[in-house]
């Protein structure tokens, strides 16, 4: 009897100690969490500060940009935007139209040609598959600079310089292997039984691609579309080489013109136009964040 009573007492005591330990752990975990949040919030501010500075400077009167650290402008100077839009020999309406044309065509090209190639690599059997796949992966490693000169000579001889063809046509030829890789990864996950069942029903591989694979791959297509949209939008080197005439300039080339006219008076306008050039990217990022994050986690690039 007596031992039983001690047992119970010991058990109670143990339970109490366990409870306290758990409470302590919880409290400690909570404190750690709060510290973490404080640190991460601080870091977020540091990470975003440059972007806010750019935004603030684009709204400040010229003499305030470099004289004060305060982000809030003393007065909102929207003139930077209206004047900046027309500050260059051509208006930004032209540059945005140009960028839009190049971007839209390039995205279509990437999606079509890369999904074709990816479908073959992921779902079809053919001679030379491993070799071609290895070659495709190797092109991922090749810097654009290495193929630049011969490509330039080629396009020059075709009379394509100063047109959008050198920027757009390669995208219809699956030149960006990253997207092939991304889509191969995705296509491989789709259940093979679908193809097999369709095959037995007499579906051709072309039809399987169009009716089964493509509709099931909308998330992958979305990811590829957003990445290719953002990269083409920001692309600088290829337009720099192929576009000489200012009326065919894309937005990044136009922004660079501001640097050539260095002089304090245009900083505000340059910042304003820089902000505008980032807006499409940021909007797409916010709208399609999930697709972007998943795309990186599964294929892992850039």
């Amino acid at each position, binding site marked *: 009897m007596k031992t039983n009573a001690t047992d119970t007492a010991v058990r109670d005591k143990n339970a109490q100690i366990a409870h306290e330990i758990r409470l302590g752990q919880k409290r400690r975990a909570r404190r750690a969490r709060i510290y973490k949040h404080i640190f991460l919030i601080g870091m977020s501010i540091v*990470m975003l500060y440059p972007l806010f500075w750019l935004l603030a400077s684009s709204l400040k009167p010229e003499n305030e940009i470099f004289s004060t650290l305060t982000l809030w402008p003393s007065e909102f100077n929207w003139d930077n935007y209206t004047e900046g839009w027309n500050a260059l020999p051509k208006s930004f309406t032209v540059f945005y139209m140009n960028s839009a044309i190049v971007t839209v065509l390039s995205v279509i090209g990437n999606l079509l040609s890369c999904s074709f190639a990816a479908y073959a690599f992921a779902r079809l059997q053919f001679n030379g598959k491993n070799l071609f796949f290895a070659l495709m992966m190797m092109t991922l490693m090749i810097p654009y600079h290495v193929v*630049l*000169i011969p490509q330039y000579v080629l396009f020059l001889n075709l009379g394509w310089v100063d047109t959008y063809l050198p920027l757009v046509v390669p995208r219809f*030829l*699956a030149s960006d292997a990253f997207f092939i890789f991304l889509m191969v990864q995705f296509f491989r996950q789709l259940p093979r039984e679908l193809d097999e069942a369709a095959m037995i029903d007499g579906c051709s591989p072309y039809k399987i691609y169009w009716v089964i694979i493509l509709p099931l791959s909308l998330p992958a297509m979305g990811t590829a579309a957003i990445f290719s949209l953002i990269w083409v939008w920001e692309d*600088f080197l290829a337009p720099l080489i192929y576009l000489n005439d200012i009326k065919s300039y894309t937005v*990044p080339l136009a922004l660079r013109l501001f640097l050539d006219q260095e002089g304090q008076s245009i900083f505000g306008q340059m910042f304003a136009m820089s902000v505008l050039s980032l807006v499409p990217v940021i909007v797409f990022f916010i709208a399609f964040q999930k697709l972007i994050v998943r795309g990186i*986690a*599964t294929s*892992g690039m850039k």
Partner: protein
Amino acid sequence: MKRFFKRNAPAYVFLTPWFIGFFLLALGPILASLYLSFTRYDMVADPRWVGLDNYEYMFERDRRFWKALEVTFTYVALAVPARLAMALGVAMLLDKGLRTIGLYRAIFYLPSLLGSSIAIAILWRQLFAADGVVNQVLAKFGIEGAAWISDPDTSLYTLVVLAMWQFGSPMLIFLAGLRGIPRDLYEAAEIDGTSKPRQFFRITLPLLAPVIFFNLVLQTIEAFKTFSSAFIISNGTGAPADSLLFYTVYLFNEAFKFFRMGYASALAWVLLLIIGFFTAVTFFTSKYWVHYENERD
């Protein structure tokens, strides 16, 4: 023959755009630039065969070539580890003990997405200008900052900082990798009284090795290719005093400013060999430090 055709036709049809692209835009140009690298070619007259002259000049007399190598290697050696360390550190912070990380993840990733845009390069020039924000902040603490971008001793570091600012995509890949490590390993280690640093070296690092390897290869190649930001920040020339003469910037100028296409092709081939070499070394040594676990997932 008929069977071969029947078996392969659909795949080859689907691959046709890629085939054309591969031969016309990748393989062809690589071989063509190999040929051009043995010539003198200004795009006006036909290429003239000069044998190994370009390479001889490059290695023996071209001081700017060596300078470009120095700048690029320094950048790669600093930017890649710095960015990966940032990425891994933040990923570990986000991985454990927090309920919602979506917003942080988005904020930390955003700079990576904007990073290669001209707007950001323009912004960076102003942040690190002599009268820029960085120096104003330093002045608040009574520190007199350098001229950063216009000082050849510090200009390269502004680009390293830019690279660190863009740690977002390796961070996302690390996060995905960390999610794959079974939690019970840490719990077991906790019960055994294993210290946190030891847990990091004994559990996190070994199990994350494949992901680290993947990020290392990608980021190294990426760093060698750096162009737009260096080009904009250095006014397209590699200034000041060639301290921002990235290899790609040098190559671009030789080709499209001075139209020394033959020499630029030789530069391009050396770049290809360098990147190939680094990738091969990473792959070759990876078997000593990367262990893939087949049992898990």
